[in-house]
């Protein structure tokens, strides 16, 4: 370290060091590899000085200062482990241990026990006493070992509080808590979720939310940041309990939504046992949401995984070998005319798989019939969403913005990483306006909460856009009386927008499934015409950007070129050494729902829609489809933890996914399966040896893909000159509530899914936080209609009949109900006036 004003010289344990000015003694020691035991200090958190474990001797100080809170100064002489300090530390540790069940730590047989506890068994080892699921990962254990704690001289006081197991994802045993405050600081400082606080005082102090509520009821986002920093076994992941220390970590990109967080997969043996955020990353900087933190291991490690190919013989699924599976598929595909073929790829697939999938459809099948499920997800607003994505700003702009408008965004469980950014921005003084008809977790930080009545969102937004303009245009559209937003509030929000020098409009997914989503999105686009206003659509699918860039649509070729252009087709054809078909007679994925029939339907990472939509369905995924759904051939695919590849996130960052474990049993990455079938069919150009070969080919066609090897991860909006043709335009007529149909129903499809499977099917805790088949109703409406949570209701209108389970929540606006649809369910019109009655069977 260079000498200068910015550094000070200190002596630690008789060795001189030059350290930067302003750091603490603990940091100085850590930089120079000197160990000072700590329990409450954590590199991400502010110093606390609570555990007193890091006391050191400093010459000239009367007492023993804590290293974590004392800054270094010139000429400091520090001793970190004199006999006196070690004795004091040992005493302090014993005091901590007298309240922490730790018989194992001071057991006389401890040493011997360790030697003999390793036995050769198929299951995990559990010989010896194991009281704590965090054994071997406990920091208190390390400190006890360092200090050589052998006994506890103080009277043991067991708190005897109930172990809290009612919340999903993690258990809390406050008998083990040492009140280091790491979780509280994490929740308040870094996550700013403010769920955890110290409650009561003195001996009764305990950590938890207000009034003894559960975490579920107190706004917890289940980000697991508290679990990651807990130095003891107080907080432990349900799915990772007793797993022990991971063998290694692999950095990869989360594939559950379009934010594209970087995470570390914890691998033990050949399993991914957990995931943690990457600290200091430019996207998520040490944060993950509940899906990335807790759902990965359960989603990819499930025993229900499809690991071998299956063939269906009149409703009986028979396991077959890969050879037979490939031959069967090739045979069916060879006999399939191009216009009778359809392929649906998942926006969760990697770029490489998507590229090979569309090449397969275009070259091997001579057909443009490849589509993704994003089309039905975005409905009538798909084109507008694409054009907004072309203008998308990045998270860096969000961090710099002085005003942020959130439209239909709820960051509690989905994209809570964005929520953290927003709360941090609000703390910096950024003004936040949130636009959502339902109560959500941004209302606490928002300066203005515009709460339009359901169905009037587009009109309110239009008025807002008009108000940001000056002169006559401002007065133009009239706001309906029942719009729910007062003219003053709207004017105030418009003033904020007008005064802003850099504003970002964030688009969440709450309105995207409305019938008039195209209208809402066009209005937002008008807002973005103002040069000071940037938009940031937050796609729910992790690789939506990639589907456009790889050309996984009938209308789009790789690099976003329109397939209707002959020049683009010819250019691609030369690169592939093949002749591409002309793009006529457009097919799309939503036709499947309307009952059009195909000869062969190939689903790459998607689940089939409803009944038999094709004569022969090839189903390629990580789980088998539901028993009731017909799939003729099932091919086992690898999950994102088992393959190499790239994703492009919502901001257009090219990010890598890395293989953490070998694909289980007979599974293979999507692209490999497609290549094998193509080769069997005798098509040239599918002889890729590895992902690298595909990436090279993509880079020669898609300029933005260059640098795939070492992606700069710089954000860049998509360049795409094609447009999508939509079968159903948006509907404008606003349903009216009547005496017969007194409730206004809105529906949302399963938003939290991976490759077509809802997380709640395979992840235990996700069943609680992402419920399906649930209809949410306001408490007052529920009282009037005499229904309560858990009741079965029949919801009816002229065109709709559904059975759902009631969940009474205060945040639902009166007179409206919101249904979280099950997989495959749809609501014919959204919003929709309905009647509701209790199912009295």
């Amino acid at each position, binding site marked *: 370290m260079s000498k200068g004003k910015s550094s000070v010289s200190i002596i630690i344990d008789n060795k001189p060091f030059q350290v930067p000015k302003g750091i603490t003694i603990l940091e100085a020691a850590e930089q120079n590899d000197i160990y000072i035991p700590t329990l409450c200090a954590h590199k991400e958190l502010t110093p606390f000085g609570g555990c007193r474990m890091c006391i050191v001797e400093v010459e000239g100080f009367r007492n023993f200062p804590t290293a974590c809170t004392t800054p270094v100064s010139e000429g400091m002489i520090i001793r970190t482990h004199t006999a006196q300090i070690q004795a004091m530390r040992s005493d302090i540790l014993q005091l901590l241990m007298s309240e922490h069940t730790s018989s194992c730590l001071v057991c006389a047989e401890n040493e011997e026990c360790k030697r003999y506890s390793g036995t050769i068994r198929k299951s995990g080892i559990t010989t010896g006493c194991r009281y704590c699921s965090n054994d071997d990962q406990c920091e208190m254990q390390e400190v006890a070992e360092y200090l050589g704690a052998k006994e506890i001289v103080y009277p043991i006081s067991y708190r005897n509080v109930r172990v809290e197991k009612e919340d999903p994802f993690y258990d809390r045993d406050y008998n083990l808590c040492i009140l280091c405050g790491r979780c509280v600081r994490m929740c308040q400082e870094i996550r700013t*979720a*403010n769920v955890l*606080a*110290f*409650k009561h005082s003195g001996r009764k102090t305990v950590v938890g*939310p207000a*009034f003894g509520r559960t975490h579920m009821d*107190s706004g917890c986002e289940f980000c697991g940041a508290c679990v990651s920093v807990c130095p003891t076994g107080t907080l432990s992941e349900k799915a990772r309990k007793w797993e022990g220390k991971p063998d290694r970590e692999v950095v990869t990109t989360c594939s559950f939504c379009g934010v594209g967080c970087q995470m570390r997969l914890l691998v033990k043996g050949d399993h991914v046992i957990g995931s943690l955020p990457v600290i200091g990353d430019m996207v998520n900087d040490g944060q993950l949401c509940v899906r990335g933190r807790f759902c990965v291991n359960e989603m990819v490690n499930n025993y229900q995984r499809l690991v071998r190919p299956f063939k269906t013989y009149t409703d009986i699924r028979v396991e077959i070998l890969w050879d037979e599976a490939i031959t069967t598929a090739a045979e069916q595909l060879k006999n399939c005319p191009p216009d009778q073929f359809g392929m649906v790829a998942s926006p969760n697939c990697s770029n490489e798989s998507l590229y090979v999938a569309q090449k397969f459809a275009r070259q091997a099948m001579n057909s443009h019939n490849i589509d993704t499920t994003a089309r039905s997800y975005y409905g009538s607003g798909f084109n507008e969403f694409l054009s907004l994505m072309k203008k998308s700003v990045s998270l860096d702009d969000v961090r710099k913005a002085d005003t942020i408008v959130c439209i239909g965004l709820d960051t509690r469980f989905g994209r809570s990483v964005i929520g953290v950014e927003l709360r941090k921005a609000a703390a910096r003084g950024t003004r936040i306006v949130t636009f959502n008809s339902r109560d959500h977790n941004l209302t*606490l*930080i928002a300066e203005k909460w515009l709460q339009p009545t359901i169905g009037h969102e587009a009109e309110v937004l239009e008025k807002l856009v008009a108000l940001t303009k000056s002169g006559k245009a401002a007065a133009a559209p009239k706001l309906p009386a029942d719009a729910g937003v007062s003219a003053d509030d709207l004017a105030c929000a418009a003033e904020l927008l007008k005064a802003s020098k850099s504003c970002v409009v964030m688009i969440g997914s709450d309105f995207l499934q409305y019938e008039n989503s195209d209208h809402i999105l066009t209005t937002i686009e008008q807002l973005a015409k103002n040069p000071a206003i940037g938009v940031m659509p937050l796609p729910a699918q992790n690789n939506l950007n990639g589907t456009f860039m790889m050309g996984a649509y009938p209308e789009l070729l790789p690099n976003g070129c329109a397939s209707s252009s002959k020049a683009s087709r010819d250019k691609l054809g030369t690169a592939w050494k093949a002749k591409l078909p002309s793009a006529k007679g457009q097919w799309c994925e939503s036709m499947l729902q309307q009952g059009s029939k195909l000869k062969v339907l190939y689903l790459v990472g998607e689940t089939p829609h409803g009944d038999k939509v094709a004569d022969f369905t090839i189903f390629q995924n990580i789980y088998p489809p539901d028993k009731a759904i017909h799939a003729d051939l099932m091919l086992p695919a690898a999950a994102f933890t088992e393959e190499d590849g790239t994703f492009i996130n919502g901001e257009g960052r090219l990010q890598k996914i890395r293989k953490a474990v070998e694909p289980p049993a007979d599974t293979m990455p999507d692209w490999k399966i497609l290549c094998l079938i193509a080769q069997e069919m005798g098509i040239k150009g599918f002889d890729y040896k590895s992902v690298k070969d595909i990436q090279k080919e993509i880079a020669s066609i898609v300029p933005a893909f260059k640098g795939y090897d070492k992606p700069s991860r710089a954000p860049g909006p998509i360049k795409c000159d094609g447009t999508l043709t939509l079968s159903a335009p948006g509907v404008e007529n606003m349903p009216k509530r009547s005496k017969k149909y007194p409730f206004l129903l809105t529906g949302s499809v399963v938003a939290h899914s991976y490759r077509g499977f809802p997380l709640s099917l395979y992840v235990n805790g996700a069943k609680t936080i992402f419920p399906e088949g649930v209809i949410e109703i306001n408490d007052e409406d529920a009282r009037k209609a005499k229904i309560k949570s858990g009741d079965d209701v029949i919801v009816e209108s002229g065109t709709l009949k559904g059975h759902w389970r009631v969940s009474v929540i205060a945040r639902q606006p009166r007179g409206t109900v919101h249904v979280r649809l099950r997989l495959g369910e749809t609501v014919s019109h959204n919003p929709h006036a309905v009647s509701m009655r209790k199912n009295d069977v």
Partner: protein
Amino acid sequence: MKETDYDKIFSRFKGVESDIIPMLLRIQEKEGYISEEAVMRMSRFLRISENQIYGVASFYSRYRFNKPGRNSIKVCMGTACHVHGGKFSCEAFEWQFGVKIGERSDDGKFDLQQVNCMGCCTLAPVVQINEDIYGHTLVTGLKEMLRKYE
């Protein structure tokens, strides 16, 4: 408390973090305890999470989170009273009302509290009901004592 009562209290504050303690005091003065609704409204007003407000409030034994009964019973647990068996009076009340310390009886007539010394140790064990002090109490005489307040 009605919405206007809250508004009246809140109108005296700027809405900064340091307002938590005085706001809690005003609310307790008015309502006698800190209700869940009060914390929720404070959270909306101050833009601080309910959990943090509860964390601050629960630190001080002065704030109570249960609705007080019409009469308050305070059982002394100071040294002298403890030696003379104040604990038994307390347990007797707990059994009689089926509540724990700090809670309110089902009929809302009484609430039970423990205090540490009332300064009249010669009368130990001491029980205070509202403003009346009862000394040399016996477990057998408690029921008789309560009759006055029913």
